[in-house]
């Protein structure tokens, strides 16, 4: 690696001060599983940084708490292993446990953070579709104060986010799940482990009190557009409907239309579009079944 300076602040305020004082050319360092690899490869994806600011020792990025009305607070600095094994996440936000539990090896999961996965802004990030389907909001703190942003508005393109210089993503807020709801995430990969999603799909559904119609449907897609996306027209087509096989198939077909995949080394656009249909249909069926069982 070429030289850079490294700062190890102990609080969020101290970290923000460093960015302010040092100016342009700095990058936050979380788990390092993307950033350090990119630095070793010469930093082709971004200008090589002059300095890194370690987020490892910021207590503000390690929040983790559950509240009946407010839902889940999830610090951006929590590792994939911590997220995937957390009981609140596993019981109330299983799609997120699914996604976090798929990122790389055991070693990767011990290092990589959920905030880093989101900020790296890969369209294939495995925690992104779950967080979108679960309607996560991102808390961003910077020199101008803080703001809460629906995660859907966080990404601008591959590797690009709304974060400005000196701003940090500190935590996610996930609203509490509705009664009779379920969520899950699956990805398609040629290998079972150590692979990157060709397509990732997350769904979250809630049934009405009688269990006969779908009160809420969220469908999020990874690796089929420049950013992770919601399939909003597919969601709207299914909400308020009885979950018949025909209605589910129709929603899956609409999700296919909403995908804007490209062809690359992992798969062709046609394969990706096909997978979106198959996976969305299967996941909706499974999620509805789970929501029924409660």
């Amino acid at each position, binding site marked *: 690696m070429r030289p850079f*300076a490294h700062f*190890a602040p102990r609080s969020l305020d101290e970290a923000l001060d460093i960015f302010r004082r040092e100016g342009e050319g700095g990058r936050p360092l979380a788990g390092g599983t993307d950033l350090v690899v990119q630095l070793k490869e010469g930093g082709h994806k971004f200008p090589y940084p002059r300095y890194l600011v370690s987020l490892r020792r910021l207590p503000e990025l390690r929040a983790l708490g559950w509240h009946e009305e407010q839902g889940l607070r999830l610090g951006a600095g929590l590792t994939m292993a911590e997220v995937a094994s957390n009981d609140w996440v596993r019981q109330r936000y299983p799609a997120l446990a699914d996604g976090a539990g798929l990122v790389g090896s055991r*070693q990767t999961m011990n290092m990589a953070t959920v905030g880093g996965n989101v900020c790296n802004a890969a369209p294939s990030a495995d925690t992104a579709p779950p967080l979108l389907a679960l309607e996560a909001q991102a808390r961003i703190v910077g020199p101008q104060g803080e703001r809460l942003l629906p995660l859907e508005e966080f990404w601008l393109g591959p590797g690009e986010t709304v974060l400005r210089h000196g701003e940090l993503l500190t935590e996610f807020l996930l609203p509490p799940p509705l009664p009779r709801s379920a969520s899950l995430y699956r990805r398609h990969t040629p290998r079972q482990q150590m692979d990157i999603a060709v397509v990732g799909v997350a769904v979250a559904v809630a049934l009405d009190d009688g269990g006969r119609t779908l009160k809420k449907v969220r469908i999020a897609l990874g690796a089929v557009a420049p950013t992770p996306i919601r399939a909003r027209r597919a969601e709207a087509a299914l909400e308020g409907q009885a979950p018949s096989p025909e209605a589910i198939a129709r929603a899956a077909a609409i999700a296919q239309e909403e995908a804007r995949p490209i062809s690359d080394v992992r798969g062709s656009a046609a394969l990706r579009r096909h997978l979106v249909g198959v996976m969305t249909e299967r996941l909706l069926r499974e999620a509805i079944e789970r929501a029924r069982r409660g």
Partner: protein
Amino acid sequence: MPKRVITLTVNGETHEVAVEPWWTLLYTVREELGLTGSKEGCGTGDCGACSMLLDGRLVTSCIVLAVEADGCQVTTIEGLAQGGQLHPVQQAFVEKGAVQCGYCIPGMVMAAYDLLRRQPDPTLEEVRLALAGNLCRCTGYTKIYEAVLAAAERMRLEGARG
């Protein structure tokens, strides 16, 4: 800019080491502390040859900056044998002939050691999953899995006796 002095406790022994911010933990442990058991394979966190425990968590040390490990406890492959006695995982690798060229083995042993602390009675599938981040270019996986399962059995028996 002068080097920074960090504190690393490696296999129970505390060291103060002067490091550059861009040195990896693997480089520092190998080149500054002389512990060359951990290997560099890919250098990008994919192959697992550099696996070690950082504050009790299995990591690929080739993509951990040494400065990030300041103040941490590190366990390397050199830290497993106690009093001249191989750890049961190491002993099982010897007995099962799980070692071919040997380059991946320190990482394999560390990943297996980490698994058996969390899951003393793993299935074959769980062993395969836990070692997914460790590549053997001799493709000696079958013997490696057999060794891990044998080590698990021995450790359970010793635990029951002990």
